[in-house]
């Protein structure tokens, strides 16, 4: 680890990818993530990597498909409308079992929406916006240091399970600055060889990487393999943070930057004598249902806060299973909720 430096979120994630040994980046400009694409255009040249601005997000994701299939650690970043365009390719990558890291700096929607921070793409990112039975590991960082760590982790998870992985960021995460300590870079040459990659059939039989089998019985087998993989990911890759949950009477659930805002609400509530706590899922798939369920046993209210109309709320309800009330507070369209207004919403819920 080096010294702490002040960086923007977009740069923190870009540099983390470089440190993770990523040497191939494809992207297309879209606010509010263009600075990440710009950063990579500079940095890839410096480290002898590949940067290419594609003609569209559709082309971008397919360039990732190609790069990944020949064994490269590959990344792109985009924002909501761009991520919509990538869904087809992501579905192909999922079934072809191709690793790759996608950074989605989510903005207000639907449609053209706006360019302010939002979490309104939770369903698309977490539940799968493309076709077919697939899941994607999704990580939602709440600080830039965590964004750095999760970006590096995302590459490892992508390679380990041969799957696309998403970093769920928002415009706030992209634009804010915070001190960050980067780990030492990984030498891309030191990464283990991928024994499935298309590297030319030298001294071995020809290999195919496809998302396709016309025979339904064979495709079903491929599908089942994927499901086995998702089961393993569910068992092994859950991440979350608990904040002041030991003696809590009320539990908040929030992810990403909102999770961090709610931490201030928790402190404000405690100043008023309300013992609040926070459960912050870091992996959204796999969602930490079990732990949230355990925490729900201790409280009467599990309040979800999102920058959406209530999407993660559905997962919270699946975890709580009616054991506690599950009110919701959300802001839409890129409006960032403040700690104070969240507290007000809680007070209303408590009837105070």
């Amino acid at each position, binding site marked *: 680890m080096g010294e*702490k430096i*002040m960086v923007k979120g977009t740069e923190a994630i870009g540099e983390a990818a470089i440190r993770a040994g990523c040497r191939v980046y494809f992207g297309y400009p879209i606010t*509010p993530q263009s600075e990440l694409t710009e950063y990579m255009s500079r940095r890839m040249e410096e480290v002898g990597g590949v940067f290419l601005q594609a003609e569209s997000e559709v082309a971008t994701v397919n360039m990732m498909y190609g790069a990944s299939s020949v064994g490269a650690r590959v990344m792109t970043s985009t924002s909501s409308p761009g991520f919509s365009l990538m869904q087809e390719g992501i579905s192909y990558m999922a079934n072809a079992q191709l690793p790759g890291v996608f950074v989605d700096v989510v903005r207000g929607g639907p449609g053209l929406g*706006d*360019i*302010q921070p939002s979490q309104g793409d939770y369903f698309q990112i977490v539940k799968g916006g493309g076709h077919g039975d697939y899941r994607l590991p999704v990580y939602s960082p709440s600080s830039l240091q965590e964004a750095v760590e999760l970006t590096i982790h995302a590459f490892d998870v992508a390679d380990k399970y041969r799957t696309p992985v998403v970093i769920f960021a928002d*415009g*706030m995460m992209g*634009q*804010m*600055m*915070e*001190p960050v300590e980067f780990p030492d870079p990984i030498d891309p040459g030191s990464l283990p060889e991928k024994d499935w990659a298309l590297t030319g059939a030298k001294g071995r039989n020809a290999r195919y990487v496809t998302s396709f089998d016309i025979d339904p019985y064979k495709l079903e087998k491929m599908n089942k393999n994927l499901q086995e993989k998702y089961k393993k990911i569910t068992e092994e890759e859950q991440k979350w943070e608990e904040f002041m949950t030991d003696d809590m009477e009320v539990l908040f659930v929030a992810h990403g*930057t909102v999770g*961090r*805002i*709610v*931490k*201030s*609400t*928790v*402190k404000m509530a405690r100043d008023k004598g309300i013992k609040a706590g926070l459960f912050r899922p870091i992996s959204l798939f796999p969602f930490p249902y079990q732990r949230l369920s355990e925490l729900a046993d201790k409280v009467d209210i599990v309040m979800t806060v999102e920058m959406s109309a209530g999407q993660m709320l559905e997962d919270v309800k699946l975890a709580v299973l009616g054991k506690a009330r599950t009110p919701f507070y959300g802001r839409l369209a890129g409006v*960032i*909720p*403040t*700690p*104070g*207004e969240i507290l007000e919403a809680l007070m209303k819920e408590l009837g105070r």
Partner: protein
Amino acid sequence: MEHKLIAAGFGGQGVMLLGQLVATAGMIDGKHVTWLPSYGPEMRGGTANCTVVVSDEPVASPVVDTPNEIVIFNIPSLLKFEPTLDKDGILVMNTSMIDREPSRKDIKVIKVPANDVADKLGVLKAQNMVMLGAYIEATKAVSFESVIKALEKKMTGKKAKFLDVNKKAIEEGMKIAREQLG
């Protein structure tokens, strides 16, 4: 102690840079810091603002409802942020740009004719550094030494020649605040 600062003005007045310097200086001082800009179309010509938190503890929310310190560069920003300032909070205002009085009586006000001061130093653009000086003197949020170190990090290459005049502008701002604080 947690310093929750909002700096606001027109785009191009150096509001964002002021905030970044406070945050970077805080980091050098060993504090936990965040810098969060308002961004988007409004940055061009409209009002621009950023929120900086400097804290002894890890920063929870980078978003602030009630800042305890505001640095204000123009009238629209005064109208927008003065009402949000915490009781006993500190308002640093650029009186070269703002020809009216703040309405609150429960806050501390530092009046800085920043443009005039910077103009006298020969670099009008350094008015944000005058404001920065007044801010750090009035709040003690970050140390002068660390601000200078942060400035050195920012002002490299072609900009390095402005280092001295910026330093001078910060000192002038500090002097003005000191006089008013008594």
